[in-house]
């Protein structure tokens, strides 16, 4: 009953799609596991257990897909509602993008610079635009980029990544 609108049908549709994707992925992995050589020392080789696990995932996904369709029918959603929902998650998506960029940049730019840039940009995007918050944002970015680097290096002798140039 809650799935009458295209917006409410979005998650069930994506769940059905996820069952299909997972089932295909699991079948692929199960077949790869099957091609691992058998062991001479034991009845179960390195591939038997993963084959069992991935086959079970595939079976469960197919069962979940069929059960969902039988119980509630095909959910009807629209691309428009999907884009609307995506638009509402702007903060999350921007932050996720920034974090992925941060992870990619850290090995090259080093911990201090990449963390400072990430914290600065992420906070500037989220924080209310006021002069006081700008100061807070700068202070937090500086404290949490330089602070952990020297804390780990001097106290724990663990060296966080240094810049490659």
């Amino acid at each position, binding site marked *: *009953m809650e799935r009458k609108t295209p917006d409410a049908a979005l*998650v069930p549709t*994506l*769940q059905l799609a*996820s069952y299909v994707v*997972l089932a295909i992925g*699991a079948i692929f992995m199960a077949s790869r*596991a099957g091609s*691992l050589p058998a*062991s001479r*020392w*034991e*009845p*179960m080789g*390195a591939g*038997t*257990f*993963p084959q069992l*696990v*991935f086959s*079970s*995932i595939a079976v*469960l*996904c197919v*069962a*979940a897909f069929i*059960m969902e369709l039988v119980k509630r029918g095909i959910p009807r959603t629209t691309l428009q509602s999907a884009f609307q929902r995506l638009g*509402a998650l702007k*903060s*999350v998506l921007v*932050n*996720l993008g920034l*974090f*992925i960029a*941060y*992870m*990619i940049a*850290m*090995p090259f730019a080093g*911990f201090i610079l990449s*963390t400072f840039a*990430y*914290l600065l940009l*992420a*906070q500037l995007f*989220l*924080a209310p635009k006021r002069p006081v*918050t700008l100061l*807070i944002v700068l202070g*937090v970015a500086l404290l*949490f*980029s330089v602070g*952990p680097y020297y804390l*780990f290096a001097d*106290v*724990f*002798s*663990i060296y*966080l*990544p240094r810049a490659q140039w």
Partner: protein
Amino acid sequence: MMDAFLLALGGVTEPYTLMLMAVATFAGIVAAAIPGFTITMAIVLTLPLTFAMPPMQGIAVMLSVYVGGLSGGLFSAALLGIPGTPSAVATTFDAFPMARSGQPGRALSLGLFASFVGSLISIVVLIVAAPPLALLAVKLGPWEYFALIVFALTIIASLVGDSVMRGLIAGLIGIGIATIGPDPLMARERFTFGYELLTAGIPFLVVLIGMYAMSQLLSELEPSSSSQQVSSSSLVSGDMRPHLWDVIKSTLRKPFNILRSSLLGVFIGAVPGAGSSISNLVAYDQAKRASKHPETFGKGEPEGVVASEAGNSSTVGGSLIPLISLGIPGSPADAVLMAAIMVHGISIGPRLILDHPDLVYSMFIAMAVASFFMLFIGILMMRAFMRLLNVPKYIVVPVVLACCAIGTYTLNNRLSDLYLLAAIGTIGYLMKKLDYPLAPLVLGVVLGPIAETNLRRAFQTSADWSLFFTRPISALLLALAVLSVAYSIYSYIRQRRLLAQRAEAAQNGAYQDDVSQE
């Protein structure tokens, strides 16, 4: 035994260790009090700080964060009306009305004292239950161990989330992730597809940080949850004095409530997958049912605060029972504790208590000491915590995400783990949005290799697969696993039927109203 106990006592009560534990308890309370920052995140982020410490000290510090964290949710629950962690949902029901009616100090000290007593009771149960269970577990063969893990995973899948099917799929995906990299017995490389990134496998802490911390933090940025930011100073004013003596007297005058809630918490904590967020609600519900004046619940009833807080804090001892005696973590937080012990080269399992009794005793003592710290730090710093609750989300989310990156890198000093974190975090958030429970997945990654090792050992011992069903304990555990799935499917169907009946009744009622109006 006495030697080990004295060694543990000496280790934990060293002044430097005590100081670290006090700081850790404080940090645990603060972390759990900040909405969006969970206890698991706090424990994960503490882990790299303990690498340089001796095992006993490191574990004591992490347990202090755990104990502090279990009572930290109380502060935001009482002062903001928002549970700081999922384990303080029921605490808001009575602590918040009590604080708003001008008694914030009393509400907090009631919760803190209940948490303190709950933790102590759970430690006593842990001390009594864990050693005999471990002695029993040493005698279990690979058949029983495999069946035990199957049972644990089905329980987790059935208890967490809305759909058993998605819970089971998530658990199996976790086990599947754990099969990447070298196999646990012969170290044969599996599913690396030629990528160097995958040759060492996917470390379970990276999965845990990505799945749990990252997805939770990103969810905090969603519009509905971020709009709930409330300022504590604008809501709560009144008597901030703790009235500790009055609180102790009034709580101990009705000991059944606190005792029942604590024992419920211990039991729920000991069941894999059912953690403090469930015990908090169950203990509250039971207190309300047993009360002679249930109508006062939800309006600032002291018994409600006591029950909910004793209920969540007492899970700490309960959840350590399967970890110490069987080597099976029941929750992601326990899985991190397990990793912390393993980082120091100590293997976890039923032999832990036999091989390292000093470490196990130090865990018991550290939890008791941390409980005292939690009570005193909580009482003394009530006012300061009120200020700390106002840390805005635009600081918390990016800073904790950066801390997640530090935690991930320092685990193995491997840059490739950072790429794995970003990928797993994205997948974790996607799965959370699609309503897949993440706890079974994370525990699947931990339990998968144990399950595989035992299954293959069983077949190395004998190729007869029927032994899984003919050995009594193994058969019993497998039967329980099937029962747990069947029961959760049955209760799901019953719930749906009830909802449908209610909707039908409401429709009929509306129709009859229309007819009578005509």
